[in-house]
């Protein structure tokens, strides 16, 4: 028996979750997508992810040295690096495979996260911030998409193909998949989209494996339905209602499956939008935020200049989270009557 026992303020026990378990669980949930990316795109994809993770850890280490903290292994920097890697195109020319992910990770950790006080204080998802930063810095490298399973041949992502294909299109296709197959001379099915035999970022292509990871996080109660359900519902409804217009088939004919399984939507919905730090803190706020993400993703994707829209939509919603928090404060117990009386 020790001389003296531990003294703490109540509560004396805990549900067992910690920052560590949260962060590492998300990384574990992403593992199937990581492996799939390497299978589809080869070792070049692996090296890009290694660079992004290592540079994120290096940036965190430098911050730790400056601020005399020890947060290197809390899982947050690792996760940010991993998400950046998964958001990179699978192959980049010359030395770009080193400096692009490194630039993204450094921007994410040092500027987006570190400059605002480290973990928990960033107002934008660091991984997305890093991605958008390199997207605008090296747009040429960030928009070249290697085809899966064949080295050195590039092609369009499904959404990119549709977007460019629609310009001056005169064929007969009346839905995005047919149109894509028409303009790219390919023979893709919905199953290919779902499993992930398509072009795109390293980690965004397999909806199936990402959903598996998401189920793991749902079971672990790390991601909240208040975010991903309204996101999906609003996005699906809007696509169903209005996306048919682009193909001349009118209202309520949008191709939901095509939009669900492409353009990193699943990655964004379950792994980016649900980031605890940059999403609202009340359930009501989360519903608004999720719905906003869905609306903006639809808007940017269908009517915007870029084909995808997930990253930007989430970033814009991240930025208004403090506002959402302000207007969705819960009603204080025992105050309802007082306030009514004061009015």
């Amino acid at each position: 028996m020790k001389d003296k026992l531990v003294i703490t303020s109540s509560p004396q026990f805990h549900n067992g979750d910690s920052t560590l378990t949260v962060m590492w669980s998300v990384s574990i949930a992403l593992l199937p997508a990581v492996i799939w990316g390497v299978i589809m795109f080869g070792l070049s994809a692996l090296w890009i992810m290694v660079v992004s993770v290592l540079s994120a850890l290096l940036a965190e280490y430098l911050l730790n040295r400056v601020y005399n903290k020890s947060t290197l292994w809390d899982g947050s920097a690792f996760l940010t690096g991993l998400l950046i890697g998964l958001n990179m195109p699978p192959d980049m020319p010359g030395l770009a495979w080193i400096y692009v992910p490194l630039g993204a990770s450094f921007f994410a950790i040092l500027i987006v996260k570190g400059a605002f006080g480290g973990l928990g204080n960033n107002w934008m998802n660091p991984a997305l911030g890093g991605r958008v930063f390199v997207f605008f810095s090296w747009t040429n490298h960030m928009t070249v998409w290697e085809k899966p399973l064949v080295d050195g041949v590039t092609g369009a992502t499904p959404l990119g193909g549709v977007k460019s294909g629609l310009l001056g299109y005169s064929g007969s296709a009346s839905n995005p998949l047919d149109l894509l197959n028409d303009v790219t001379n390919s023979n893709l099915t919905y199953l290919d989209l779902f499993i992930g035999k398509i072009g795109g970022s390293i980690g965004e292509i397999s909806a199936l494996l990402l959903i598996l990871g998401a189920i793991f996080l749902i079971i672990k109660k790390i991601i909240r339905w208040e975010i991903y359900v309204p996101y999906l519902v609003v996005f699906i409804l809007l696509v169903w209602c209005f996306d048919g217009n682009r193909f001349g088939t009118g209202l309520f004919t949008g191709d939901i499956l095509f939009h669900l399984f492409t353009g990193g939507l699943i990655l964004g919905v379950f792994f980016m939008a649900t980031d605890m730090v940059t999403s609202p803190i009340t359930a009501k706020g989360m519903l608004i935020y999720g719905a906003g993400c869905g609306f903006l993703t639809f808007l940017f994707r269908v009517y915007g200049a870029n084909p995808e829209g997930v990253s930007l939509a989430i970033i814009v919603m991240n930025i208004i989270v403090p506002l959402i928090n302000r207007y969705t404060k819960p009603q204080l117990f025992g105050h309802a009557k007082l306030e009514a009386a004061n009015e």
Partner: protein
Amino acid sequence: MKLKSFPKGGIHPPHRKNSSYSPDDLNASLPSIATIPLSQHIGAPSKCIVKVGDTVNEEDLIGEASGFVSSNIHTSIPGEVIEIKDLFLPNGRVCPAVVIETKGEFSRIGKSLEIYPWDDIEKEKLIEIIKDSGIVGLGGATFPTHVKLTLPEGFELENLIINAAECEPYLSSDHVLMLEFSREITTGLKILKKILEPKNIYVGMEVNKKDAGDLLTKTFKEENLDASVVLLKNKYPQGAEKNLIKAIIGKEIPSGKLPLSVGVINVNVSTVYAIYEAVCLKRPLVERFVTVGGGAVKNPGVYRVRVGTSVRSLIEECGGFTEEPEKVIFGGPMMGFTVFDLDVPVTKGTSGILALTKKEVNSARTTNCLKCGRCVDGCPMGLVPSKLFKLIDHNLCDEAVENGLNDCVECGSCAYNCPAHLFLVQQFRAGKSIVRRSKGAK
């Protein structure tokens, strides 16, 4: 059947209740030395009326109430006062305590006591008996019961709510009490009914004690007492006063007000039993039901323990420790206090003694707030704990008060949920005391 509950917040910690007990062997061993603190209640400490060398009989008065909001203290064993010393209480305060060594005859324990009729006793006299017997709220707050029962002139009480929720994990003292003493509790309720004349009597308990609830319902019927058992969802903090009242009658106590403001008096079921003993057995409050539990205790269970028994002897009686405990707790794991050694005695307010293992405690390093919102989910009072934490961190306590700091009931739901393991409740206590002090300075 739809179970009642408070609407917002709350958490679902593992129950880990072990209501094992043996009806024939419910009493813990008598202490050979009892250390009886003179402050076992909210309010002014009692005035010591014995001195070293005095001989006391079982259940003799040793501390006298020193004001209206104060309480009498009796000795739980007969013997000689060998020391009066300062003692650290589990809540961190220091108070004088009377140390008594057992000597002489036990005249009351183990004997079948005469049951006195109480029908003819006046209301005021009943409250007097409760006051003299040193009865305090046994749910943990230890507010002197006679103060609570003294209604304002002309006040007509709507509801008497008996708190048997016992929502803290591990604890099952009230459960065992209700299973063993349903008839006595019924009599206690009748006494309370005479004193308070409420229109309705409700007994609220979590549905995990349904067997006790059924037994009480049956006993109420047999004894012709018009009271109803309300089963509540298993959800912490179902037994917090404000939440319990909201769950049962649907009314919210306005911020900063007492239950009386919504026409309710709330009494713990253990207190009801103590009232029965005081009135019918003429017995002061010298013992209570205590759950001894936690993963580090060999034979956990519920015992009837004399006030002044040290934790050390109680745990030895339960077979000692199976492994080194990380913490030893007075009360439940959500709102209880840790102690730094095992010589602290059981007092009137001790509902449980828990020795938790490292694995049960689940502590981890504190990190920055992740803004995950789990504290907001957990809070039954509609607070935003993460924001309050930050405000107090920045020394903006007044702003924290505007955001409801003083509505915090310190139930611990936020900190239990917090993945960053922030010391939320500790921060709120500190904030409240800063506010109190700055008010005092003005």
